[in-house]
């Protein structure tokens, strides 16, 4: 249905539009501006055209960071989505104080500031005083020192990430499950459907829109991730956990290579945009095959 046009609404929206323009559009323009210049300092700038872009495309370190990023985001989706859905399935569908308490506990990691998350895990994983670190090191007998062992650094980052963000998937999936009318479960029970059939043929299809949101959100967020892994590992050991945004910040702030960094930012932005669009179209098309 087309909504009635009420011109007054534009006036109300104007302040927000101005704010967004100021905070987002103008910096974006600035970045585009820098990306075609070589900047030595505020007075010495040289127009270099697309040189930075060409260099970025051949930059080995960038390729490595990009690969690491894809592996990371891929693992995130592979682990968090099934895990989140599985946890949501175990939470009772009825309202009650037990359900509410469970949801609050599950959501707690989402409320913690991201750098604090990093700090929590730094301590948690220390082989001398950290609960988990010490457990692995002494009780399990495995030498655990993640700042120096790349595989352990990856494991630590993954553990932290899953712990932090799976609750979001749980909450979304739970909302989706709650909206399924009881009659479907009753009909399935009458048809003699197994628990697995109920999941496959009723719950999963009905959660489609909610899972679409979950996939998009988790992909975009994980692709842009910075704070938590930076606090935990600093990108190390060496380059092993340097994801795209960490590399970008190193380049822009560490080396103050603003022009290169600006070009990199734009490429970064376009990659995220392209992937999100593809994901969205695929899921939308699959969803449209079904009825109203």
């Amino acid at each position, binding site marked *: *249905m*087309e909504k*009635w046009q*009420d011109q007054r609404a534009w006036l109300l929206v104007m302040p927000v539009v101005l704010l967004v323009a100021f905070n987002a559009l103008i910096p974006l323009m600035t970045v585009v501006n820098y990306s075609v210049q070589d900047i030595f300092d505020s007075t010495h700038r040289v127009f270099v055209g697309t040189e930075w872009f060409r260099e970025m495309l051949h930059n080995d370190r960038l390729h490595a960071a990009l690969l690491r990023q894809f592996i990371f985001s891929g693992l995130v989706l592979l682990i968090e989505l099934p895990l989140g859905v599985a946890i949501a399935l175990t939470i009772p569908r009825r309202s009650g104080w037990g359900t509410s308490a469970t949801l609050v506990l599950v959501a707690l990691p989402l409320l913690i500031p991201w750098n604090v998350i990093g700090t929590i895990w730094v301590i948690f994983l220390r082989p001398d005083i950290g609960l988990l670190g010490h457990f692995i090191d002494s009780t399990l007998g495995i030498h655990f020192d993640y700042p120096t062992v790349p595989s352990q650094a990856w494991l630590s980052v993954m553990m932290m990430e899953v712990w932090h963000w799976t609750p979001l998937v749980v909450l979304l999936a739970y909302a989706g499950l709650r909206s399924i009318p009881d009659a479907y479960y009753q009909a399935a029970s009458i048809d003699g459907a197994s628990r697995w059939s109920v999941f496959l043929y009723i719950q999963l299809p009905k959660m489609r829109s909610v899972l679409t949101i979950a996939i998009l959100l988790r992909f975009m967020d994980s692709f842009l991730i910075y704070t938590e892994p930076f606090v935990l590992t600093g990108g190390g050991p060496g380059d092993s956990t340097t994801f795209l945004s960490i590399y970008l910040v190193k380049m822009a702030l560490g080396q103050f290579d603003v022009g290169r960094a600006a070009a990199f930012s734009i490429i970064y932005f376009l990659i995220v945009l392209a992937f999100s669009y593809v994901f969205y179209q695929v899921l939308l098309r699959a969803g449209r095959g079904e009825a109203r």
Partner: protein
Amino acid sequence: MRVTLQNVTKVVRGQTHLYDTTLDLESGSFNVLLGPTQAGKTSLLRLIAGLDRPTTGAVLEDGKDVTAAGVRKRNVAMVYQEFVNYPSFTVYQNIASPLRRAGRLSATEIDAKVRATAEMMRIDPYLGRLPSELSGGQQQRVALARALIKDAPLLLLDEPLVNLDYKLREELRSEIRHIFRDNETTVVYATTEPQEALLFGGNAVVVDAGRVLQHGPALEVYRRPATVRVGEVFSDPPINLVRAHVGPHECRLSPSVAFPVAAHMRELSPGDYRIGVRANHIEVTSRSGDSGAIRATVELAEINGSETYVHARHGDFTLVALLEGVHEFALGAEIDLYLDPARLFVFNGAGDLAAAGRQNDQTAEAR
């Protein structure tokens, strides 16, 4: 308020919800929009209310073009299927809200009107309750009261009784009928039930697949449906449609059934037509003037209190008859059905009415 739609269409994303429609609703009239689901009734109501803008065409109120005016500027009240009430307001506050927002009456005047309207809708004992504490029927009465208190010159109702129990529906229908009998409000009431169109006794606007098929006094449209489709939509139980060949002297339904052409059919040119006969004009006992017997096999017999519905098959068509009284039929039994040739509708090949028979106390007429 006189409402006029001029050549109004509504196209949404390439799909036409309403084809070129021109409709004139007189001030103070009670109009029933009758049609199956997805026919375009709700689209039409929304255009009249001002909730949607027509793709082309104009909406006039008392001759003034209001197509560009939003619903807030038009003086209209609307009642929905889903018992829409403000959930956090009590019944009293719900009913008072339109008057309070208009700000024209004093608190004591508002109080008097609220109590009077609540009493008319029989919800005065519940003025202090919240809508969630009321039953479905009571909630819908609150919605109705809130619409009525505005005293708007135009009232729109979109299948307001469809979510209520059968008996509640009956009661509210009578009440609505009485409220609007001598009222000056122009009412537009959308429904899928032909019974309601006849019961309210106003005009019927038959809508199907985005088009207005016929518009006129309900009983008129019922007795003289302009097309086969109108006959189908405006029937409960369904109208019987049979192909027949009309000759100069006889009308033949099948190799074994033919009867003399009745007065209203004499002017028809010979050819193939479709005969329409309503279920309650078929009998199992012959009366003088009836056509010969149609021997049919009973496929189904349903007893509904003091009436019987019989579905019986003859050759390649099935007739549904509504018989008075309780008749027991065994399935597969052979019975004789009689119809009065003077009562038949005749539709030509294009589906338009060519002749209409005597309907109740009318005299025969032909087109």
